[in-house]
């Protein structure tokens, strides 16, 4: 399997597309900035949200039980799934029980994490993603490249080709308005004929047993309100204590995600409508383990706004698919190693630790510090290449012994001055697209000994 660096290198072959990808996501980041700066008390709002989420993590079991009891009272059936396989099986069982073989699904990163679509297709169920971006990537057999903007890696010409192939739109017409209208017509028909709708969950309220789903397109509602069966899949950490806490989180979510003051629809599902069945699946899938990792449990505070992706200078220039995991970008890089450290060992290194993610995060997750800490975990667990370990050990010796350091420094400068070809060749990744610095004759230490010897009061 290719790692982030290799996938990012491939992405960077098309320079113009990288420029476009970077600028498009930067535009979203600036919209977020504008919304945040316009909002009086933004930093206090972040702090409040962060503290509520800390409280949630410390009471997660009791809030889940409270939620379950209230949801049952409201007429919702509650399921518990330890892992992706159990979650997928629960969905399949409900489909089989009701003899349904085709369903609609609105955006749910959890189902991406669980690979639900593949599983259901394997079992003869047709899944139709109804979020426009997700429908586009589904037609193309690709995973979403961003948790809020699933098709952000594609240009309108790509979408035009895809829709021409699958929806019969006019070849070469890449007008977003025209293409969106085509999807609207196609999916309206689907909404009216599907008996089961699956949605994600943005927030679930312990004290009321209701859950909130946020969309701009209205696809979650179109699906859920027309289907006989509504299944909502939710990661354990989506719970919040009180209905009033929504006043904090709904103010943060859309502003952080796209710069909108709130999503177009913030739908509160408390009871099934007459004659409808409503199910909610509470999914662990590694979350309770992450909760036990003191350094990393804060990652569970995430509300999936995607702001860390839009701000990340690496994400913007490497694309979501280079992260080879359901949730890409900085947040994905601290979540994924918990699920599979060996497979995702490259991700915490796909960062310059610039810290922009941590400061843009609406719930104050210390993302870049966690990236640093995952690096230590990965090395300690033996997932670092041997050659790197050998080099690091040598460096450790050199840097802890001043004499060895002086000699190696001198050797480096000598080589740069008199035998640059040893360094300036294609085996040196620095030199590929950058010149090496010119080496001076003497180090500062030598200069100091020569020019400030009187003052040299060192031992």
């Amino acid at each position, binding site marked *: 399997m290719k790692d982030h660096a290799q996938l990012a290198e491939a992405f960077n072959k098309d320079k113009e597309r990288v420029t476009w990808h970077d600028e498009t996501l930067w*535009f979203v980041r600036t919209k977020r900035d504008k919304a945040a700066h316009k*909002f009086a*008390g933004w930093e*206090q709002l972040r*702090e*409040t949200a962060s*503290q*509520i989420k*800390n*409280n949630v993590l*410390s009471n997660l*079991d009791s809030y*889940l*039980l409270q939620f379950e009891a209230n949801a049952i009272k409201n007429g919702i059936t509650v399921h*518990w*799934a330890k892992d992706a396989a*159990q979650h997928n099986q629960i969905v399949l069982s409900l489909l089989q029980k009701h003899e349904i073989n085709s369903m609609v699904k609105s955006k749910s990163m959890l189902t991406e994490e669980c690979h639900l679509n593949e599983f259901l297709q394997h079992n003869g169920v047709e899944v139709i993603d*109804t*979020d*426009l*971006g997700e429908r586009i990537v589904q037609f193309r057999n690709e995973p979403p490249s961003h948790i809020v903007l699933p098709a*952000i890696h*594609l240009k*309108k010409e790509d979408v035009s080709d895809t829709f021409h192939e699958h929806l019969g739109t006019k070849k070469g017409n890449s007008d*977003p308005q025209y293409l969106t209208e085509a*999807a*609207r017509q196609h*999916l*309206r028909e689907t*909404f*009216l004929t599907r008996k089961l709708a699956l949605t994600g969950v943005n927030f679930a309220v312990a004290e009321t047993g209701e859950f909130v789903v946020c969309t*701009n397109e209205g*696809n979650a*509602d*179109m699906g859920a*309100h*027309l289907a006989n069966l509504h299944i909502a899949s939710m990661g*354990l950490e989506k719970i919040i204590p009180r*209905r*009033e806490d*929504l006043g*904090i989180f*709904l*103010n943060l979510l859309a502003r952080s995600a*796209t710069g909108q*003051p*709130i999503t*177009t*629809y*913030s739908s*509160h*599902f*408390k*009871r*099934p*409508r007459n004659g409808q069945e409503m199910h909610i699946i509470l999914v*662990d899938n590694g979350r*309770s383990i992450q*909760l*036990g990792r003191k350094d990393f449990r804060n990652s569970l505070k995430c509300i999936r706004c995607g702001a860390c992706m839009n701000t990340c200078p690496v994400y913007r220039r490497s694309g979501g698919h280079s992260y080879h995991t359901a949730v890409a970008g900085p947040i994905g890089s601290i979540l994924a190693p918990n699920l599979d450290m060996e497979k995702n060992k490259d991700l915490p290194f796909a960062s310059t630790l610039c810290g922009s993610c941590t400061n843009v995060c609406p719930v104050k997750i210390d993302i870049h510090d966690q990236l640093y800490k995952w690096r230590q975990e990965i090395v300690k667990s033996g997932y670092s290449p041997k050659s790197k370990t050998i080099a690091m050990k040598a460096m450790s010796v050199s840097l802890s012994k001043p004499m060895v350091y002086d000699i190696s420094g001198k050797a480096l400068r000598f080589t740069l001055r008199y035998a640059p070809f040893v360094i300036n060749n294609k085996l040196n990744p620095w030199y590929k697209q950058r010149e090496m610095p010119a080496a001076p004759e003497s180090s500062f230490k030598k200069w100091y000994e020569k020019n400030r010897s009187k003052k040299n009061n060192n031992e």
Partner: protein
Amino acid sequence: MSSKNDILAAIAANKPDPQPLPIGLYTPESGYNLTNRFIENVTLIGGAVHQISIISEIEQFISTHFPSAIRIITNNKSLKNVGTLLLNNDLDKQIPHELENVDLTILDAPFGVAENGAIWITDELLHHRVLPFITQHLILIIKESSIVASLQQAYSMINNQDYGYGVFISGPSKTADIEQSLVIGAHGSRSLDVFITGQASY
């Protein structure tokens, strides 16, 4: 049952020490003109706002802007002349799919929120939850005096409300999934007009 017990046991073993809920860290902004802020936000998110003194102005608006609308639904009794169908319990007997050909829906809504232009509506008013989504166009009517400043105030008002389904609607349905180009009219209503009636109360 065992999955549930296993999950709860793992959480109990792994959760951090108790952390308190925050109190009074954040206070919403106040002291600004609520109507202006509300209008500013609805406009920002692609909706249009009209301040009117009498409800019949809506009838005029409909005949000018939606001359070809055939199926119109409303829950406002004074608008029954324009509405081909008045929302009532008779409608409950229909299945939601039969609303598929609704051109325009006009709904009285309980209140709006200035800081984000959102309007609250619950299923008692809708009769069919799908109505504001499946309709091609949507008009919402609120009293000017009902506009609250913040979501925090909004939730303190609905904190004890018992709804089966409630939704904050903020603008027409939209998407920017193709190259971040904003397109109004994704799967829900293609437009949102908000009518503000009456005077602000002080």
